[in-house]
């Protein structure tokens, strides 16, 4: 009989057995409706063919592929947070490992669904096993994806095992029989013996070590699907690490969103605190810097060489048909970086200055919007001519940027006081930005082929419905899973309490005064 800390029991165990409220059912019904709509659209695509999508020649791949890369990227967070932090024994990881691991598993499952949407003959999927050709990057990808899914499910399960046993032993009397059976089956006879703990720790360590190279391999191989071709814009050597960095980056962004949702909806004030946001925030900033570095390097080489087929691809991103998605991505990333970095840089003293107020930010935003509206909207001929003058126009846009920067400064102190809100905002920016980045990698190269007229790709309603349904499925998986299993790893948190308790009893000696430095007094008269 395993015992649970009474605090954890009221916060984590009891809500699992409480009857779900109307809001839960509403969410489930809504998500099921979206999924049902997506399923009907998929049936349509199956019946008529992939012609129902917006894809054509030469845009043979569309947002299914973009979603695939994006979702496996998002799933990277689990590997990083739970495995890397576990191995390095970082204490703050404890309350968020479970969320990160589920993000990995569900993200990967929904990602592999995208491949199923994308292929023309899903009925022949097993050909990959039967006739698999080892030289194909797509086969490496399939292998790596399968291995990653299996490993991450195993990792999640191993971490979950003591908690399942805990739930089995603490089932309330009125719990339905199937839940009792579920926990008994999944609990595998875990009794918390010393030998069992030893074995579990060993297994977790092994799997944590294994999952890191597997995760890195998946993102690298996915980039190789593109970079092993001879197509302009794809044949780049740094695409592998660029994908890995982007994956970790978007993973942390998604983790911010999911952990905040879990914290707010399940009232986990005791477990998820400001220090988690702070610690993850530093990781986020590092990834952000690396992302800018890679993006700059990747594009600089293309700008410098101006190769006949490569450059049009980049030009379409810089000022052509994809400028909106490219500069949108850059803007989102800059905003995310600003949100995480600038509040950390401002000294507390500056708070008294009037510009560092939310209302100033609001006013600046308004001014920026008015200025931008002036520049974009149709004006009387005379004003228009004056505005279109290069100097005026540049000045006008600089003014807009200045106002936006002022708004950013004004909101900074408010962001500093609300770490969760700012983290979620930054996370949302990065998640959206990384989706756009995947789009910018896949689509412009396809629309700028050699020897075929350039085209434009727009996803069809079928593709958009299936993407929405995929996101709904991801959300539903979280919702159902966290209704059955605790969102916080109970045993890890309890272990953390013991560690913290032990550490608090260690006496740290006070610092000794410095020894007088003979050089310091040299030349001075005493």
């Amino acid at each position, binding site marked *: 009989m395993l015992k649970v800390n009474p605090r954890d029991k009221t916060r984590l165990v009891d809500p699992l057995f409480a009857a779900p409220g109307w809001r839960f059912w509403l969410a489930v019904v809504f998500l099921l409706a979206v999924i049902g709509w997506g399923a009907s659209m998929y049936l349509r695509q199956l019946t008529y063919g*992939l012609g129902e999508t917006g894809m054509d020649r030469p845009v*043979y791949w569309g947002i299914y592929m973009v979603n695939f890369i994006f979702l496996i990227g998002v799933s990277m967070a689990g590997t990083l947070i739970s495995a890397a932090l576990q191995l390095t024994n970082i204490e703050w990881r404890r309350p968020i490992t479970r969320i990160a691991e589920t993000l990995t598993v569900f993200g990967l499952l929904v990602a592999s669904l995208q491949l199923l949407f994308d292929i*023309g*003959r899903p009925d022949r*999927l097993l050909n990959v096993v039967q006739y698999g050709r080892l030289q194909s990057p797509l086969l490496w990808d399939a292998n790596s994806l399968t291995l990653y899914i299996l490993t991450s499910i195993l990792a999640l399960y191993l971490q979950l095992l003591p908690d399942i046993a805990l739930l089995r032993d603490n089932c309330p009397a009125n719990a339905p029989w199937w839940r009792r059976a579920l926990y008994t089956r999944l609990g595998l006879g875990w009794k918390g013996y010393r030998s069992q703990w030893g074995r579990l720790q060993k297994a977790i360590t092994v799997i944590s070590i294994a999952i890191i190279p597997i995760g890195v391999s998946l993102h690298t191989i996915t980039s190789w*699907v593109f970079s*092993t071709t001879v*197509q302009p814009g794809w044949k780049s050597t740094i695409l592998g690490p660029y994908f890995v960095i982007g994956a970790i980056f978007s993973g942390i962004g998604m983790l911010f969103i999911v952990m905040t949702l879990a914290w707010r909806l399940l009232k986990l004030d005791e477990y998820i605190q400001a220090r988690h946001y702070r610690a993850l925030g530093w990781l986020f900033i590092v990834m952000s810097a690396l992302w800018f570095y890679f993006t700059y390097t990747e594009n600089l080489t293309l700008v410098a060489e101006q190769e006949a087929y490569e450059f049009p691809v980049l030009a379409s991103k810089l000022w052509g048909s994809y400028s909106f998605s490219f500069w949108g991505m850059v803007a989102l990333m800059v905003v995310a970086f600003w949100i995480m970095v600038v509040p950390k840089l401002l000294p507390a003293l500056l708070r008294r200055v009037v510009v560092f107020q939310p209302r100033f930010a609001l006013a600046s935003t308004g001014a920026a919007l008015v200025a931008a509206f002036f520049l974009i909207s149709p004006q009387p001929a005379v004003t228009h001519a004056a505005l279109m003058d290069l100097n005026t126009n540049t000045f006008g846009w600089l003014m807009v940027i200045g106002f936006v920067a002022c708004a950013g400064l004004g909101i900074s102190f408010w962001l500093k006081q609300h770490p969760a809100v700012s983290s979620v905002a930054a996370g949302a920016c990065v998640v959206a930005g990384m989706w756009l980045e995947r789009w910018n990698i896949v689509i412009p190269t396809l629309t700028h082929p050699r020897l075929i*007229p350039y085209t434009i790709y727009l996803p069809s309603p079928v593709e958009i419905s299936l993407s929405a349904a995929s996101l709904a499925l991801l959300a539903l998986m979280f919702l159902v899973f966290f209704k059955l299993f605790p969102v916080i790893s109970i045993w890890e948190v309890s272990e953390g309490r013991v560690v913290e308790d032990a550490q608090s009893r260690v006496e740290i000696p006070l610092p000794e005064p410095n020894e007088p430095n003979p050089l310091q007094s040299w030349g001075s008269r005493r």
Partner: protein
Amino acid sequence: MPRWGMVIDLDKCVACQGCSIACRFENNTPAVSPEEALQGRSIRWNDVFPLPIDPAEDKDVYPNVTTRYLTRPCMHCENPPCIKVCPVQATYKDEEGIVRMNYARCIGCRLCTVACPYGVRYFNWYAPEWEGSLSEHLNPDRIEAPGDLEGPAVRPRGVVEKCTFCIHRLQKARLQAEAEQRDFRPDEYVPACVETCPAKARYFGDLDNPDSTVAQLNKSSRAFVELEEAGTHPKVTYLREG
């Protein structure tokens, strides 16, 4: 063992698109609706396209037009980017250098279409359809074995297809030679486009035979290949105009 290759003399080509039509009927390539064609979903194994590719760029008036035409079958590269990426070996290069396509195995992942720098691989977005009595006059030839479907056999929806150098004609020529109990000669087989070309702009034959027309023309100072920088080593060579 011959190594098949093609030479297209642009000096002789009149851009009549006869090769394109011959290919369509020889290989049962379905025509798509005008809307689909506008969306870029038409299937033309042997495409005849203008250069510059954007017709709006040619502002000259007849007879001083500058538009040039290029006809584009599959290049049957010696180093094909498409077969390297196929996860199920549905596309492969046989020992005679023809890049072949097995419709019965293709899973429709479209990595080969994405990898081909020439854009000569096509995807069946919908099931093929023929208008009216056209469907009764399809080419009945097919190359078939368990798990193997090639040649002009009607392709199912959701698979990739491409020019095969009329592989069924080669097979027929071989069978004919066998039936007549003699050795097969490389000049017994040409693809439909070569046979049709009214200007005799296309040559086809064995590149490994130094005396063959294609091998001789390959040495011409006018010879060039498309996208040489992609490193694909095409076996379709063009002879420059003039």
